[in-house]
């Protein structure tokens, strides 16, 4: 159900304050310690952040895509690691279940995901399976009432914290492509699951990523998302979650860009060279102006695509346009922010150095920029022929 303007504004105002007063002061500490304080995670749970996109019937907030984008843009003003804590529960970790799960599966998992009691994690990528996501090698072999999973999943966000994995595994070895893949709901505590050490990442410290290894891990046949009739249809489930997820990442990129611009303007008006604030120099102004114009363009794109999705339009091409433009945009904005800061921008004391690394991921995960380009182009060609 769409919220009225006053309610949404009040929520956004509250979140904006939570970001400024609670999250921003801890950015440096979280980055240094690679750990988000547990009490902060409790506060996020209390605010309802884990269940933003989970339907109200299952205890979530049931935000529309546009509302979600407006909220995420606010959260983008602080380190993306904070958003990552509840990111999977609102995106790839829950949406497959929301869209294709059986009633029993939804009522079993979603209420606990909405409160944050269960953290969901999405396990598709493998050592040899990245952009070619249909080439899943992890196998699921039927054995009595169970399937037996074997394989390794790589770079799995929130895996160290997860209680529930959405695992994509090949149920039909005779079908090499996406068609032989099924999606399983796998409780993280099952025997046969081990986690690799946390990957050491370029940025976003505080958000954790690792390998998940399945060795003869038995799951019941009822664990296939949507039940046994969805056998071999898991890839379609994965694809369905993408449009909304890509808009979410785009809104996040806009939020980060806004923060980088704020930091740049603040620095440029304080810092003096040649006897005046560097903000008075036109070459600095040009960088600020380009960043603002591009961030605003991305914001308009994201909100437009989100509204169209909420109105029932198919937005796969538009969502890819948003993800491509917004994430490349924030890369440029971060680069300019470091440039405006000069030597200071290369130092850890300033937030822009950290953001520069953090935002680099946006151009890669949930579909690289190059994958977005091919989605857009293929969409155009398909529409024409």
């Amino acid at each position, binding site marked *: 159900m769409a919220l009225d303007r006053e*309610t949404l504004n*009040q*929520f956004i105002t*509250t979140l904006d304050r939570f970001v400024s007063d*609670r999250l921003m002061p801890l950015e440096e500490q979280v980055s240094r310690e690679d750990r988000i304080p547990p009490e902060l995670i409790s506060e996020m749970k*209390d605010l*309802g952040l884990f269940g933003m996109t989970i339907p109200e019937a299952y205890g979530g*907030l049931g935000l529309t895509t546009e509302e979600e984008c407006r909220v995420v843009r606010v959260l983008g003003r602080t380190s993306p690691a904070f958003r990552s804590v509840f990111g999977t529960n609102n995106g790839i970790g829950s949406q497959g279940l929301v869209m294709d799960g059986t009633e029993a599966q939804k009522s079993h998992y979603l209420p606990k995901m909405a409160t944050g009691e269960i953290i969901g994690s999405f396990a598709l990528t493998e050592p040899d399976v990245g952009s070619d996501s249909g080439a899943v090698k992890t196998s699921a072999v039927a054995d009595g009432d169970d399937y037996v999973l074997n394989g390794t999943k790589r770079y799995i966000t929130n895996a160290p914290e997860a209680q529930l994995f959405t695992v994509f595994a090949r149920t039909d070895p005779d079908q090499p492509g996406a068609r032989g893949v099924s999606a399983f709901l796998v409780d993280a505590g099952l025997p046969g699951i081990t986690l690799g050490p946390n990957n050491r990442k370029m940025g976003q410290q505080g958000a954790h990523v690792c390998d998940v290894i399945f060795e003869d891990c038995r799951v019941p046949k009822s664990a296939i998302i949507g039940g046994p009739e969805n056998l071999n249809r898991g890839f379609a489930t994965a694809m369905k979650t993408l449009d909304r997820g890509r808009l979410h990442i785009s809104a996040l990129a806009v939020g980060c860009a806004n923060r980088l611009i704020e930091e740049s303007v603040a620095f440029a008006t304080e810092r003096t060279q040649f006897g005046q604030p560097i903000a008075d120099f036109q070459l600095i102004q040009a960088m600020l102006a380009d960043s603002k114009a591009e961030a605003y363009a991305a914001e308009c794109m994201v909100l437009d695509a989100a509204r169209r999705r909420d109105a029932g339009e198919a937005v796969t091409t538009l969502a890819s346009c948003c993800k491509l433009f917004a994430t490349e945009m924030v890369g440029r904005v971060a680069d300019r922010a470091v440039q405006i800061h000069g030597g200071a921008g290369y130092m850890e004391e300033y937030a822009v150095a950290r953001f520069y690394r953090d935002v680099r991921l946006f151009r890669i995960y949930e579909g690289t920029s190059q994958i977005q380009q091919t989605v857009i182009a293929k969409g155009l060609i398909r529409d024409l022929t």
Partner: protein
Amino acid sequence: MKVLVPVKRVVDYNVKIRVKPDNSGVDLSNVKMSVNPFCEIAIEEAVRLKEAGTATEVVAVTVGSSASQEQLRTCLALGADRAVLIETDADAQPLGIAKALKALQEKEGAELVIFGKQSIDGDNSQTGQMFAALTGMPQGTFASEVKIADGRIDVTREIDGGLQTVSLKLPAVVTTDLRLNEPRYASLPNIMKAKKKPLDVVTPDELGVDLTPSVEVLSVEPPAERQAGIKVESVEELVDKLKNEAKVIS
């Protein structure tokens, strides 16, 4: 026990305020407004009393224009049970507000009234005290801790150089200092629930009070711009200037 919490709509504490060019006041156009931070602490304390089972009902009240409903909704989202707006477009001042609240208190009969110690716009720190004087209720101002037991409330007050604890017989008035508590953030579910909580509007006329200001603001000036500092050549010169010009050491 019913708790009444008067709150005020003020310019948000993050806003850099601008004085109007004619020095008649602060420019409020397109400025973000919020619940006065000390009043938010008062609401939080009342809600905690309710959660602890000490209070049974928390009523938020404000005196102001219809736009103040926004701040009352915030109080409802933070946990108040209902709200009352005493609606006026007049420039209400502490004495008028205290009189209006006294009239409301006669209807509500709250056992505890928690004010913020002052608003961050006027900085008067008068309304709670005036209300206590008008109603004859005992007051514990600048509270950093409160404890309720056996029909009394013990209030630890932040005073110059230390703490003072006073014991008041209920019904009583408390005004909150900064360290009493740290207010929570309203969750979206609670913001949505707040829409359904009752918010009554009454006029000063209905309460039989006159809010005509008795104090006239003559001018409002922004703080003086800081002068640029100077560089001294030696420690001796620094000590000399601190002694004889700044007169901060002797």
